């Protein structure tokens, strides 16, 4: 049995239709994710409009260094994921698998950086509650959004890391063939997690430092 026939699943007549079907399904899922994160961004926009000065003051306390370094890490992971997906399309097995592992390592690096950042935030006491260090009460709303949005993003990234690991292992064992649409599907999800982070960076890190 050739690799092509092994990758083809019911009910698709050919691999091209199967790949389009998979991409269609993933984008339907991503559209629901857009609405999920969109509701968070919308809530942020409303409260930022109502309490602009408090949000600016609160955003000034975020760790810009960690935010920028983690963005660089995540953009680089999208770069290696792109090479992995295109490598799979062209039949470069070793390149694809290597790039998937590098992508996975960068994803873990992002979470480690996030851990250091969370530690720094907690040491300074920036968790909404009775002992919050900033005097203006509405700054706690910003920090509530900070914890929820970055936390939910980290959960999504963790799922992505798991998916990339499974695909890399299955490709390595040849259980999954390169022309399977699975690599493309995981790639789309990974890029989407990066897209969400690109949206979060200005809202959290960049608007309070001028």
């Amino acid at each position, binding site marked *: 049995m050739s690799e092509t026939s092994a990758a083809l699943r019911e009910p698709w007549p050919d691999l091209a239709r199967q790949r389009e079907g998979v991409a*269609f399904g993933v984008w339907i899922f991503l559209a629901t994710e857009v609405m999920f994160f969109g509701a968070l961004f919308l809530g942020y926009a409303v409260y930022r409009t109502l309490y602009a000065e408090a949000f600016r003051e609160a955003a000034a306390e975020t760790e810009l260094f960690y935010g920028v370094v983690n963005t660089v890490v995540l953009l680089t992971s999208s770069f290696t994921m792109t*090479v992995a997906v295109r490598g799979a399309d062209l039949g470069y097995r070793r390149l694809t698998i290597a790039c998937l592992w590098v992508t996975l390592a960068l994803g873990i690096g992002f979470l480690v950086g996030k851990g250091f950042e969370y530690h720094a935030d907690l040491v300074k006491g920036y968790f909404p509650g009775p002992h919050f260090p900033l005097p203006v009460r509405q700054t706690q709303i910003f920090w509530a959004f900070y914890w929820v949005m970055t936390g939910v993003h980290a959960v999504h990234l963790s799922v992505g890391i798991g998916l990339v690991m499974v695909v890399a292992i299955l490709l390595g064992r040849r259980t999954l063939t390169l022309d399977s649409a699975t690599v493309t599907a995981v790639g789309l999800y990974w890029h989407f997690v990066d897209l969400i982070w690109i949206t979060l960076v200005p809202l959290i890190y*960049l608007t309070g430092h*001028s």
Partner: protein
Amino acid sequence: MNSQQQQKPSPLRLWLDAGLIWLGLFALLALNVFLSFVPFGSDSVAVHMTVSFAMIVLLVVFFMDFKAYTALLRLTVLAGVFWLTFMFVLTACDYFTRQ
């Protein structure tokens, strides 16, 4: 080696093509960070989101291969954007027009 194999891009070509977009994303990130030290006042969110939007366009068009999508896939992506916009506009009509 058949003609299709001879024509397919080399691994180096893949790195270079994706690397160009990667550099573009880096340049836009650097611009966004630089702008965070410029006092834009109440316009700062709009300025930063504009740069971030450019990054998202690069990511979706080139890394997520939107440019190669069929009409069905493009419509699916745009439907997501449409409903997101719809949600923002309806909410803005309420909050930002209150007396």
